[in-house]
């Protein structure tokens, strides 16, 4: 099991552009959460997907959107990129069925730089 995999690992975009980041969850996991980690900060929750629907959302603007596919993989889309969107984007997966005693596994992250 490769665990949680994210692609690409690094990305450079220009202000105003749009970006799509991808995540494949750990085998057996059906819930995917996305986090933004700015330099020197802890990860901040963006949103969570389960059964192909957004279930919970953090304090992020509508420019941030996502999708979950039937195979549980997920995409994070960011429109109209701002310099402040430069960060490490982390994907975490977990099994819903385990209830509160489940552990979230994190991917290596995608480093997005907006210039």
């Amino acid at each position: 099991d490769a665990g949680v995999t994210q692609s690409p690992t690094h990305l450079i975009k220009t202000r105003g552009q749009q970006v799509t980041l991808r995540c494949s969850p750990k085998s057996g996991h059906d819930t995917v959460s996305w986090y933004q980690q700015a330099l020197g900060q802890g990860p901040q929750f963006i949103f969570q997907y389960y059964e192909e629907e957004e279930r919970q959302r953090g304090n992020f603007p509508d420019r941030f959107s996502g999708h979950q596919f039937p195979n549980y993989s997920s995409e994070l889309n960011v429109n109209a990129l701002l310099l402040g969107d430069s960060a490490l984007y982390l994907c975490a997966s977990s099994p819903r069925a385990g209830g509160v005693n489940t552990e979230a596994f994190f991917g290596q992250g995608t480093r997005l730089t907006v210039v």
Partner: protein
Amino acid sequence: AQRVTQPEKLLSVFKGAPVELKCNYSYSGSPELFWYVQYSRQRLQLLLRHISRESIKGFTADLNKGETSFHLKKPFAQEEDSAMYYCALRGNQAGTALIFGKGTTLSVSS
């Protein structure tokens, strides 16, 4: 407001010295508390959670509901403990998101 506070950005100790990484939280209800660790060039991984009440790599953490704290402790630090440590909380319902502190860098030198 739900919040996790880690007051120290950097903690430097010598090998063999005791370590305590502080974590305070604010949450209305009974959250789950976690410590995550990120070693150099590795992904974020769970170190321990309060409901397990176990010791991992010599680290322990006790939940103090009165002081709303969940400090991470180790009696004798090792150089391989050098890493970034994040305290996090999660609501006690399935599927709720993790809320992280800003992290503390632990540096252990010989």
